[in-house]
C-alpha cells in the first residue's frame, strides 16, 4: 500500500473518529426536534471556523514546498489526507450535513437563514477560488506549477474562505441582539 492510500485511510479514520465522538457526546440528551436542530446548528457554527483554521494551517507545509513537485512518500500521504479533509469539509458546507440525524432535524437545521448564509459563503468561496486560479496563472509565469499544486491552491482558498464566511454568518445569527 503506498503512502497516498495510507493518507486517504488515515483521513477517513479521522473523520470517523470525529463522527463517533460527536455521536457519543450527544447521547442521553432528550431534546425536541427544534432544540436538537438549534443545538446542532450552534455546534456547527463553532466547529466550521475551527476546522477552516486547521485546514489552512495544514497547508503551510504544502505551500512552503511549492514547486518541488511533491513526489516524496510523505507528500503523497499528506495529499491523501488533504483530499479526505477537503471532501469532508465540502460536504459539511454544501449539504445539510448531520447524516445520522432524523430527516426532520436535518430539514430544520437547513432552514432559510442557513441556506441564505450558505449561498453568501459559496459566493465568497467562488470569488476566492477564481482569485487563486488567477494567482496560480501569475505564479506559473515565474515558477512552473503542476496541475495538483494548482488544484490545491484553488481549493484551499475557495473552500477555506467559504468555510470561514459560513461560520462567521452562522455565529452572528446565533448571537442575541
Amino acid at each position, binding site marked *: 500500500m503506498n503512502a497516498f492510500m495510507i493518507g486517504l485511510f488515515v483521513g477517513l479514520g479521522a473523520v470517523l473518529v470525529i463522527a463517533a465522538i460527536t455521536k457519543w457526546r450527544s447521547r442521553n440528551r432528550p431534546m425536541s426536534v427544534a432544540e436538537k*436542530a*438549534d443545538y446542532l446548528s450552534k455546534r456547527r457554527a463553532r466547529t466550521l471556523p475551527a476546522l477552516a483554521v486547521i485546514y489552512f494551517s495544514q497547508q503551510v507545509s504544502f505551500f512552503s514546498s511549492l514547486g518541488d513537485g511533491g513526489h516524496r512518500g510523505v507528500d503523497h500521504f499528506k495529499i491523501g489526507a488533504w483530499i479526505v479533509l477537503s471532501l469532508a469539509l465540502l460536504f459539511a458546507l454544501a449539504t445539510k450535513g448531520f447524516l445520522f440525524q432524523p430527516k426532520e432535524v436535518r430539514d*430544520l437545521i437547513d*432552514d*432559510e437563514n442557513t441556506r*441564505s448564509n450558505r449561498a453568501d459563503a459559496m459566493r465568497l468561496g467562488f470569488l476566492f477560488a477564481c482569485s487563486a486560479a488567477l494567482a496560480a496563472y501569475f505564479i506559473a509565469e515565474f515558477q512552473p506549477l503542476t496541475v495538483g499544486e494548482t488544484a490545491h491552491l484553488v481549493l484551499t482558498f475557495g473552500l477555506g474562505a467559504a468555510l470561514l464566511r459560513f461560520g462567521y454568518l*452562522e455565529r452572528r*445569527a446565533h448571537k442575541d441582539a
Partner: protein
Amino acid sequence: MPERLANRLKERRTELGLTQAELAEQVGVTRKTVNTVENGVFVPSTILALKLAKALDRSVEELFSISPG
C-alpha cells in the same frame, strides 16, 4: 440610500408571551432564523413573512415596514 426592513416582531411576540424558540417552532424554522429576522440581520422570504404574520395574528404590513437606511 439603501432601504431596510423594519419589523415589530419582537414587540408582538413579547405581547403574546412567546419565546423565540416557541415562535420558531410554530413557523417551522430554527430559533436562529427568528433571531436574525428580529434583529434585522436577515430579510425573510414572503412565505416566512406570511407564516410569521399568521402565527402572531397580524398582517404582514403590520409586522414589517420599509424604513430608509
